[in-house]
């Protein structure tokens, strides 16, 4: 008897078992990926890890996240607005004006106010979600990017790529309370579990700055190193932490890797090779899979978190930017 056959058979069995098992372990879900060039979101089925459709959006879709009432909000830089998409129908309910050239945004816990970075004007805008009226604009450093609101909604953090600052803004008064010097070209931010620390990626510094939110100052820096890549090829952008705040996942841009960071020790535990210019990341609900958007290979990489291994790459739209996992 040919000795190869049983192996093949076993493999086939395993594959069949996996195929059956996967949909059970990963509840029906969808990853929505924005694209800067296609004006459309690509929808990926989290069970089969295949593209199941697209939704047309406003122009040059970038930052995308869920609203408190679970609508999908996608900010479009060239439309000066966001599309508010109903998840059930996949249709845009309305456009929310976001001021000129919006890049990233955050939403108040009560869902009433949108905070947005307007990159050409060098402003952060406070926008009334219902009416779309601009409530206030706050002058910040050039090319503002990341926007993050504290859990209580009282403090807004905005990064400026040109000034290499993190602006701390009081949402009640609109006053800039403090400008914190970060590394070169600070981009995205994530809070730890208690909100006591804000982690900020520095694109041109191969690093991440840790800000103590009580002292409002940088208390630590994590330098990223990737074997075979020089510091100038490591450009961290996207970041997400697990719900318990124990691990952080950082996309390292041109280094084409994602770093897993142990938050307590501030040490990189794993580096996972993904696609070209890893840009933004999102965990699924079980925190078992990490989805990574690759801006220059027009695909996303699905990473198995436990194994710290890429398991699949899926082609999406042109110049993909951000993503949201909805389960």
């Amino acid at each position, binding site marked *: 008897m040919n000795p190869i056959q049983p192996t093949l058979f076993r493999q086939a069995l395993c594959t069949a078992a996996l195929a059956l098992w996967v949909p059970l372990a990963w509840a029906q879900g969808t990853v929505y990926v924005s694209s800067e060039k296609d004006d459309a979101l690509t929808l990926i089925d989290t069970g089969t890890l295949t593209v199941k459709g697209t939704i047309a959006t406003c122009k040059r879709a970038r930052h995308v996240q869920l609203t408190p009432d679970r609508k999908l909000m996608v900010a479009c830089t060239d439309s000066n607005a966001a599309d508010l998409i109903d998840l059930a129908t996949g249709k845009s309910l309305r456009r929310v004006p976001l001021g000129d050239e919006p890049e990233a945004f955050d939403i108040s816990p009560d869902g009433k106010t949108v905070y947005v970075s307007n990159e050409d004007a060098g402003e952060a805008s406070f926008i009334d979600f219902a009416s779309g009226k601009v409530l206030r604009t706050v002058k910040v450093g*050039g090319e503002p990017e990341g926007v993050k609101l504290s859990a209580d909604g009282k403090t807004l953090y905005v990064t400026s790529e040109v000034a290499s*600052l993190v602006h701390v803004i009081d949402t009640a008064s609109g006053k800039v309370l403090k400008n914190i010097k970060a590394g070169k070209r600070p981009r995205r931010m994530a809070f730890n579990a208690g909100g006591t620390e804000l982690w900020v990626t520095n694109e041109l510094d191969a690093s991440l700055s840790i800000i103590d939110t009580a002292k409002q100052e940088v208390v630590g820096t994590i330098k990223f190193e990737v074997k075979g890549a020089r510091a100038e090829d490591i450009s961290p952008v996207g970041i997400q932490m697990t719900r318990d705040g124990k691990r952080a996942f950082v996309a390292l841009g041109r280094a084409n890797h994602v770093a897993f960071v142990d938050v307590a020790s501030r040490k990189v535990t794993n580096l996972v090779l993904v696609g070209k210019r890893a840009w933004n990341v999102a965990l699924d609900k079980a925190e078992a899979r990490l989805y990574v958007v690759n801006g220059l290979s027009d695909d996303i990489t699905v990473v198995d978190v436990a194994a710290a291994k890429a398991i699949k790459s899926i082609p999406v739209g042109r110049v993909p930017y951000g993503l949201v996992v909805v389960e």
Partner: protein
Amino acid sequence: MRLRHTLAGLCMLALLPGGAQAAVLKATLIVPQDDSRLERSRAERAYLGHPTGPAANGLAVALEEGQFELDAAGSSVALSNAEAATLEAARAAAVAAEKAGAAVLLTDLPEAWTLAVADAVKLPVLNIGNAADSLRQQDCRARLFHLPPSERMRADALAQLLVSRKWSKVLLLAGPSPADQQRAATAQASLRRYGLQVVATKAFKLSADPRERALANPVLLTGGQTYDVVWVVDSDGEFARLVPYGTSLPRPVVGDAGLVALGWHAQFERFGAPQVARRFAKAHKRPMTAHDWSAWLAGKMLVALATTQPKGPNAAWAQALAKTTVDGSKGTTLSLRPWDGQLRQPLLLTDGQGVVAQAPVEGLLHPRNVLDTLGVDEPEKLCKAPR
């Protein structure tokens, strides 16, 4: 502009706690009076690699966008402008600026004038408009820094692209001016470095005289041999514009027309470059050229320097300047080479419509910094001035 930044500095002085002094960085920009490069008929041609407006425009954009950072650091930049009609006037302007307390000089001047300025003062000088290799090599100076890519860097960038495309047989066309002869020699050095073959070198002449047509007609100049690509060296720009689509064989043209290696192009789409180009176009009603980028970067360096607030006399600014790194919206942090004061930077290869490729080309390796594959590298030791 000067008044505004000085005022901003004074305001910060009042705000700072404990009577700490706000750091004011004084700088002076010296440019030619009645700059022939900017005469309307020339500027309107907008030959690739040529300036289309004054250096002050780029500086203004950089200082404007840096204002928030300066305010946050309690620093300010006071920039003044001087125009010089002659080499002597440029030297006098430099001396006057040093006396007035300038810590940094910026120049957009011919080679000899640039050297006269650098030799007249003990200040760091930022060259923002001159690409001559001589300033980085035999005529280099310890305190002279260069923000535009050198001619050698531009030639290396093109040579790298030719290697990556396997366009290895090059027909070189060179103009009659001394600058063209020098730049043709630079092109040859780059071609040698990358193992490309020059099948022939031909002199051209801008002329409509039928008796000179063998020198003036691109079809005749490019006939009678085979080649993969035509490299045209034309510092003036008028002849080069006739070469693409004017060759005897259907081959691409590079150099001063066709595909050109530049420090910047307004159509560059990545690394936040569109925002910079948009800010510039909004402020000055013209597309941002490579020359404008160098001037803008000079402003970025002044802002970066001012916010570091080195303690002590002007010498402290000079030391800090050599170590200053800046974000030029080209995807990587840019620094000054210690061996010749040249700014390391990626170059953009453009046909004028958009950015076709970047250099260093992907896959090229270097023992320390891949950006150092462009231009004269440290072991060549072509700049002898001690730093």
